[in-house]
Structure formats: structure tokens, C-alpha cells
């Protein structure tokens, strides 16, 4: 019989489940790298691409050709013009090569001559090539620095336990698991629904990272406590006991977080919806990975048995409740 509470013993099922979720995301990332003109795992927004984005709302209906001719009169030969929202709203998005601030404002004035603009619902963003490159670079550095800092922190806080380093590495493995799931599902949405990633996506990724570690640390903390209090028990027993003792808290907290994020997703502003969706995915993955990845991995390392299929000594078989 498959016993739900034998999480550590049955780790192979949970590892396979993780891989099944990660795999499509990774495939989507590879697919995007091949098919997207930028050759990146996700569709990039103007935050990462040098260029301008005009979002204009006209008060009267205008045609795409009218907009195009305005841009062409400024020497911009191939602007990408798309209509946003309902046709009756007259909202258009135009993406162009990088245009200097002053000239962008001149274009705005020229557009206003085609039909009056709703000034309050009109935005212009422009990013120069150097800024875009630096954003990407800073992002990669931020992720690496955060990971290393957290690795060192866990190592330090487990310094009294045996093989403290293994706990850090497994926590980082769970973290990479969560980042892969969140980033992978974003890549799927990027391929299917044209999601674009912006600077907020990086915020989301780093928050997922925080979530993941926070959850893992609470479980680890209980293992650390039980290791000193229950010296007679086998390692696997202590770990399973710690998992079950913290299960209530893990589920309660993640249910509350899901409540908060769902409220934000359903009722919050449209501009943060994608951000919240990525957080929600990362948060669920974070709770899952702290229980079913980070901790079983530590045991697997101690027993030198990744899938938990080796013959067990009889006293180990009593592990569980």
C-alpha cells in the first residue's frame, strides 16, 4: 500500500512528479530560445530590449495606416503596431527602435494631431541599448549573489549539525527546483499567450527564492531540534517525524499565502496580475519542494540512495508515524 506519510521512503514518486512538472517548462524555454527573434527563454518586454513602446489611447477611431504614417514621417520605417483591448477603446501599442526622449514627445504630439489623445491613458517608455544590457547583467548577478548568500547562511546556521553543507546544497536544489518551475511555466505562458517578462518578473523570481528558502528553513529547523532531542532514533525517523510535525504549519501558511495571492490575482490591478501569478506558482512549488524535495534529498545523501530503493536495515523500516 502506498502510504502518504512515508514521504522520505517514497521519495522516488515525488521526485518523478517534480520532473514531470519541470520538464514541459524547460521544453518551452528551449522552444522559445529557438523560435523567438531575441533567442531568449521568454518573450522580453521593453525593460530588457532597447527600444520604445508607445501606448496611446485615442478619443476617436483611427486606422493602423494613420499611425504608421506618423511614425514614418519621423523616419521610423517599421514600427510594430498592435491594437490593445476592445476596438471601441481605441488603444494602440507601437514598438519601435530606440527614440530619444525629445523626439518621442514630438511623435506623441504628432499622434495627437491624428485624433485627440486621452492624455491620462497614454504612456511612452524608452530604453537605450546600454540600459537594457545592464539590466540583464544585474539580474543574473542578483540571482547568483542571493543563492550564494543563502547557501552560506544555512551552512552557518547548521554549523553544529553533522554535514551542515549537505543541508545548504539540498536547500539550494529545492530553490532551483522552484525557480525552474516558476520560470518554466512562465515560458509556457510566454509561448502560448505572449506573456512578456519585465523587471517585475525578476522581483517575482527573487521572491520565489525567498519563499522557497523560508519554507525549507522551518522544516530544517525542526530537524535540527529533533536531532539533539532524539538521539536514539535513526536519521530517517527523525527527519520523517520533523516533516510531519511541521506539516500543519506548512499547509496552513501556504493556504493563507494562496488566499492573499488569489485575492490579489482576482481583484488587484491588471498591471501586477502576471507578477502575482508567477508568485502563486512559485509559492505552491516552494511549499511542495520544502517537504518533498529538500528534506528527502538530505536523507538520500546521507543514505547514499537517491531513489530510496536499496534494501533497508530492519530498524529503519519502522520509520514513519
Amino acid at each position, binding site marked *: 500500500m502506498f502510504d502518504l506519510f512515508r514521504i522520505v521512503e517514497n521519495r522516488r514518486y515525488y521526485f518523478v512528479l517534480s520532473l514531470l512538472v519541470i520538464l514541459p517548462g524547460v521544453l518551452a524555454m528551449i522552444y522559445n530560445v529557438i523560435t523567438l527573434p531575441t533567442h531568449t527563454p521568454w518573450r522580453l518586454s521593453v525593460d530588457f530590449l532597447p527600444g520604445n513602446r508607445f501606448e496611446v489611447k485615442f478619443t476617436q477611431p483611427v486606422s493602423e495606416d494613420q499611425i504608421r504614417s506618423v511614425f514614418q514621417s519621423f523616419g521610423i520605417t517599421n514600427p510594430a503596431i498592435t491594437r490593445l483591448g476592445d476596438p471601441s477603446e481605441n488603444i494602440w501599442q507601437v514598438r519601435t527602435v530606440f527614440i530619444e526622449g525629445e523626439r518621442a514627445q514630438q511623435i506623441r504630439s504628432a499622434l495627437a494631431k491624428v485624433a485627440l489623445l486621452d492624455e491620462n491613458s497614454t504612456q511612452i517608455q524608452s530604453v537605450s541599448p546600454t540600459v537594457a544590457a545592464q539590466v540583464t547583467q544585474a539580474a543574473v548577478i542578483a540571482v547568483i549573489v542571493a543563492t550564494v548568500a543563502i547557501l552560506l547562511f544555512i551552512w552557518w546556521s547548521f554549523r553544529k549539525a553533522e554535514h551542515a553543507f549537505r543541508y545548504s546544497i539540498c536547500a539550494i536544489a529545492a530553490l532551483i527546483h522552484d525557480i525552474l518551475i516558476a520560470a518554466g511555466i512562465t515560458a509556457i505562458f510566454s509561448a502560448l499567450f505572449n506573456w512578456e517578462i519585465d523587471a517585475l518578473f525578476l522581483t517575482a523570481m527573487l521572491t520565489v527564492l525567498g519563499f522557497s528558502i523560508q519554507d525549507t528553513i522551518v522544516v530544517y529547523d525542526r530537524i535540527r531540534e529533533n536531532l539533539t532531542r532524539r538521539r536514539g532514533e535513526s536519521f530517517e525517523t527523525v527527519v520523517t517525524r520533523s516533516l510531519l510535525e511541521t506539516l500543519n504549519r506548512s499547509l496552513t501558511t501556504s493556504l493563507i499565502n494562496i488566499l492573499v495571492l488569489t*485575492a490579489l490575482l482576482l*481583484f488587484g490591478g491588471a*498591471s501586477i496580475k502576471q507578477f502575482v501569478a508567477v508568485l502563486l506558482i512559485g509559492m505552491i512549488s516552494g511549499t511542495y519542494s520544502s517537504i518533498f524535495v529538500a528534506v528527502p534529498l538530505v536523507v538520500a545523501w546521507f543514505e547514499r540512495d537517491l531513489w530510496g530503493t536499496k534494501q533497508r536495515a530492519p530498524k529503519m523500516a519502522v520509520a514513519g508515524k
Partner: protein
Amino acid sequence: MRQNTFIRLLIILALLAISAYIVLPTPKPDFVKNLVFWQEPRGRDLQIKQGLDLKGGLQVLLASDLPGGAQPIPEQMESARRIIEDRVNGLGVAEPIIQQQGDDRILVELPGVTDRNLAIDLIKQTGQLEFVDAGFTPPLDGTPISTTYSLYGGLLFPETLPTGKPISETLNAQAATKVYNTAFTGEILQSATPGLDTLGRNVVNFTIKPQFQEAFRRYTSEKLNQAMCIVLDQRVLSCPTIRAVLSADGSISGNFTREGANNLALVLSYGSLPVPLTIETTRDVGATLGADSIRRSLVAGAIALIAMIAFMVVRYRLPGLLSAVTLVFFMLTSLALFVLVPVTLTLPGIAGFLLSVAAAVDANVLIFERFREELRGGRTMRAAVEAAFQRAWTSIRDANISTLITCAILFVFGNTFGASAVRGFAITLALGIFVSLFSAMFVTRTLMRLTFSEQAETIEARRAVLLGV
């Protein structure tokens, strides 16, 4: 009631009252506003400051554009930043942000600006001021000219600017268009003020910074009776003739009107940017988008809060009810802290705040779970309360430290490239974490002691209903 617990309760009530007073949008008297002495006097209104994405407005990122791609030194960037700040303040925008980003960028955020062209013009105007050797035949005012400094950073007095190169070194013989030799940049000026000479004519009085006085004396003695043009962004403003050898101060006379003298003095004092700047990116945010987002986020926040409290009460009964009090305390003190620091609230900032709410709830969950465990383990009510806090503390501490590490990295990351949104997220989350630590370990603990330690017998009698254990 123990005296200790009583004092703690008084502190909590006092903090609640102060926070509620700060957060509620009632008009506050001036002496209260002036208590926040660390804030800019202009911004002391004790209200939550809204960022660009909520309020709408203009964001401009300026980058240094020194000839030859040279790196500016920190002092130059700082004085450039201050000059722009002075100009922007003249525009009358509420709560502008003028910050240095990285080594060579300045971020300008102008919330609520309606005339965007005017704002961009104003920032652009803070161009490069040069004093140019024009010989005996000065160009007319308003003529665009080429200068050695704008072409390759060439200066007659290279020692006056760390980035300047002597003209002799870089001299080229292209005489197709006349290239004027730049003598000094605007950096040599200490101050410039409009005034009247002895005949009652409008003049501009100026003083030279001490370290440049010797160079200025040498130049004016060599070029006596020749013209020295004042050039802003390669356009001639005025070409006064050098009438005397000058070193520390002097005055420029011409056929100035009072207004003309005033304008020239302004350009001389504020337009003398030590570093030329170009506009690198601009973001222009419509206001109604922001207003709608605020309203929606407030609704979402309220719904989330109610759902959270309901969940806590159903799951933990009486302790859950206590945590509702803690949560209200947490929210009020956090918001009050945002007003006091002050934190400019952006959309990701609101998201960061709501996440810190989740962390605050998690701390309570950790404590209540421990409390139940200790009760099930057979401890008395009073001992269980103390043990729950003691044993939950290491988990709460470690989990929050890891979040703070992430916050610090996000903050640095947001600072380096002008993503103020990312920085806003990190600040509100970090502040929220600190407040949540205090609310869990101080407020929840005091409330738990008040109810469970003081009323242990009453609660014990109705244990199944009140605790669910």
C-alpha cells in the same frame, strides 16, 4: 495581572494610538508635522507618498556623456544631481525624486507632471556651460558653434577639470568650420547674481572658485580686450569683452534688461553642470491607470485581510482571534512607518507589503502550532505559552533572516539600474519583516499571556471550544 505584562499592554496601546493617528487622513497641525525632522521640510505632510506608477508622471534617466566616454568622479555627479534638483524644485512638482543611480546615471521622477515637454526641456536645459576664447571677432548671440571641449574634451586650462585634455595634445588642423578654444567649463564659477553697476545698469556679478582664480587671472591678462563667449550646449549666450585682469570676481555688463541679467545669472549658477548629461530613457505613465490600480489593490488587500482573519479564527479559535488583533496592529504600524521613513509606495511596494503580511501570519501560525503541540504534550496553559514562543523563535528568526538577505540583494539590484519599483518592493518587504517580528514576539506574546496565563482556569474549562485541542 503582572506588572510586566501591564506595561507591555500600555506600550502596545500607545503604539496603536500613535500609528492610527498618523495613518488616518485627518489634517495634522504644523508642530506635529515638524516632528519628522529627518524629512525634507517641503514634504512633511504626514501622508503616504505615492510612486510614479500610482500617481502618473514622468521618469527620466540621465546618463553622463563626457567626451571620449570618460567616467565622471563622484563629486561631479553629486553636484550635477543637486543642480537638477534645484531646477526641478523650481518647477513646483510635489515629491520629485532625483537620485544618483550607479556611477554615472541620475534618475528623475516627477509624479503628477502634466506638461511633459516642459519638464523634459527643463531637464535638458541643464547642459554644458563653457567659456570660450573668441578673439576680437565674437560670434553673434544665439549662434551655434563648435568648441574644443565638446569635440574632444580639449581645454586651454586642463588643470581646471579632471577630465579635460590640453588642447595642444589633441589639436587637429581641420579648418573646414571654425572650432573655438574652450578656456574653462562652468565648473570654475562659485556663484553668479544679478545686480546694478554704479551707473544703474543691469549687470551679472560672479565669483570664481578659489582653486581656479590663478588660472582665470592668467587667462584674463593674456586675452585682455578680447571677447570671452559664454556658451551653453554649444550655443552662444553672450560674448562680453574682457576689460580688466580678473581673478576672484568680476561683473558682466551689456545691454541687459533686468530679466536678461536675471536669466544669465540663473544659467551661470545652475546651468554650470560639471558633467554633460544625455537623456537615456524616459517613461511616461498615465494617471488614471494608477488610480484604478490603487483602488483595486485596496479592495484586494481588504478581501485578503478578511479571508486571512476568518481562516485563523476557524483554525485556531481563541488564539486566532488574538492574531486578528496582532494583524491589525501590524498593518497600522507598518503603514505609519511608511509615512514616517518615508517610503514611496509603488505597485510592487504594495505587493511587498502584502507579502510581509503573509510572513506576519506565518509567525503566528508557527507559534500557535507549537502552543497546541505543547498542550497536547501535557503542559499547563501557562508553561505552554512560554514554551511555544521560545521554541518557535529559532524558526521565525531563521526564516526571516533569509527573507531579509533576499531583500538586501533586491535593494542593491534595484538601485543599480534605476528600477525603483524593485527597490520599493524590497523596502516595504524588509520593513514589514521587522514589524512582523515585533508583532509576533511582543504583541502576540503579551496578548497570549494576558488571556491564557491570567485566565488559565476559565479557558481550561472550555478548552475544546476555545482552543480546539
